[in-house]
C-alpha cells in the first residue's frame, strides 16, 4: 500500500490529472488515491471511533463518498487531501452519532465558564504532570464530538486555521472563539473532576 501523500505542486498536479482520468472513466485509477489516503482517513476517524472495524467501515464510506462526489471537487479551492479530510470529518461525526446516542456530554453555561480566569485556564491546560494530563484526557472525552475533532485538528495535527475552516465548513473567526470556549470548558471540567476526586 502506498503511503506517500503530497501537497507539493507537482504532486497536486499529478493528482489533478489522476482525478481527471478517473472522471473520464478509468475508475480503477481510484485505487491509487485510496491507497495514498486511506490510512490518513482511518487515523482521523479512529480518533472518534475506537473500534477498528467500525473505523475501517467509516474509512470505506469516506472513500466511497469521495469517489461519488469526485466530479464536484475543485482543485482551486482546496487540495484533494483537505477535501477528503472534510468528507472524513463529516463521516466520522455521522458514525459517532449513530453509535453513541447516550454519550455523556458536558455542556456548560457561558456565565459559568466566565468564572474561570484566562490565566487559570492557561495554567491548567499547560500543566504536563501525569495526573493533570490524565484528567485532561478524561475531560476531552466528555466534549462534543465536533469539539474533540476541532481540538485534534488544531493541537494534534497542527493544521492551519484556514484549512480547518475548509474541513469543518466554519468561519475562521468562529473557530477561534470556539477554541477559546473549548479551552475554558476543559479547564472547568478539570477543576470539577479534581474537586470530585478530593471528596
Amino acid at each position, binding site marked *: 500500500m502506498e503511503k506517500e501523500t503530497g501537497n507539493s505542486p507537482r504532486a497536486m498536479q499529478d493528482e489533478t490529472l489522476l482525478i481527471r482520468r478517473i472522471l473520464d472513466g478509468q475508475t480503477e485509477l481510484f485505487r491509487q488515491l485510496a491507497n495514498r489516503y486511506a490510512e490518513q482517513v482511518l487515523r482521523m476517524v479512529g480518533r472518534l471511533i475506537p473500534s477498528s472495524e467500525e473505523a*475501517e467501515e467509516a474509512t*470505506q464510506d469516506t472513500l466511497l463518498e469521495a469517489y461519488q462526489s469526485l466530479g464536484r471537487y475543485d482543485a482551486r479551492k482546496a487540495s484533494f487531501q483537505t477535501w477528503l479530510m472534510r468528507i472524513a470529518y463529516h463521516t466520522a461525526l455521522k458514525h459517532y452519532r449513530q453509535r453513541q446516542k447516550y454519550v455523556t456530554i458536558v455542556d456548560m453555561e457561558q456565565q459559568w465558564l466566565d468564572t474561570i480566569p484566562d490565566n487559570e485556564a492557561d495554567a*491548567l491546560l*499547560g500543566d*504536563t504532570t501525569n495526573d493533570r494530563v490524565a484528567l485532561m*484526557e478524561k475531560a476531552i472525552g466528555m466534549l462534543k464530538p465536533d469539539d474533540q475533532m476541532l*481540538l485534534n485538528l488544531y*493541537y494534534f495535527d497542527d493544521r492551519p486555521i484556514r484549512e480547518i475552516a475548509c474541513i469543518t465548513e466554519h468561519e475562521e473567526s468562529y473557530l477561534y472563539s470556539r477554541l477559546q470556549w473549548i*479551552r475554558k470548558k476543559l479547564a472547568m471540567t478539570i477543576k470539577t473532576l479534581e474537586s470530585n476526586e478530593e471528596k
Partner: protein
Amino acid sequence: MKKSELHKDQGLRLALQRKNEAAERMTLSDDFTDRLMQRIGQQDKQPKRRRAWLYPAIGIAASILLLFSVGIIFNNRQSDQPDLIAKTDTIKTSPQTEIKTVKEQPLETVDSVKKIKEKYRMPRPPKHYMAKAEVEEEAPTAPELTDENELAEIAVAEEVRRMEMQRMAQMGGSLQAEFKAITDEIRSRGERMTQHVEIAMSNEE
C-alpha cells in the same frame, strides 16, 4: 486565541497524544482497497434510481408552485381594483384573531303564556270612539231627517253620484265603475263592522 498561542497548552497536546495513541496504531485490513473497489464497481453497475423519482417530484413541485403563484396573482388583481380607498382607511381584522367581548345578560324569566296574551290583547279604542258610541246608544239608530236642506243635499249627492256612474258607463269605463261600486261596498261594510265592534266593546264595558 491568536496564532502565537498555538505552541501553548502543552498539557492539552500531551493529553490528545495519549488519547489518540490507539487511533494512531490502527491499520487497515489487507483487502481494504479491493473491497472498496468492489463497492465502487457495484455502485457503477446499479442504475441511477435517484433520477427516476427526482424528475417527476420536481415537476409536481413546480406545477404546485405555479398554481399557487397564479392563484395569488389572480387574487391580488381582483382585490386591488375596487376598494383602494377602503383598503387605506380601514383596518381589517380576521375573525379568528379579533377579540370578542360578550356582555353578560340575565336570563329572561318572563312567563311565556303571559307574554303571548299581552301580544294578542286588543288595544282599547280611543276615547272619542267611546263617546260616540255612548251618544249612539242614547240616540235612535236611524236618524230622522227633519231639515229640508239636508234632504236636498242628500238628494243632490245621490243625483251627482248617479250621474257620475252614468258618465263613467258612457265613457266605456264599465270596469272602473264596477271597481268603484266594489270599493264603495267594501267601505260601507267596513263602516258597519266598525260600528258593530264599537257597540260590542261598549257593551262589554
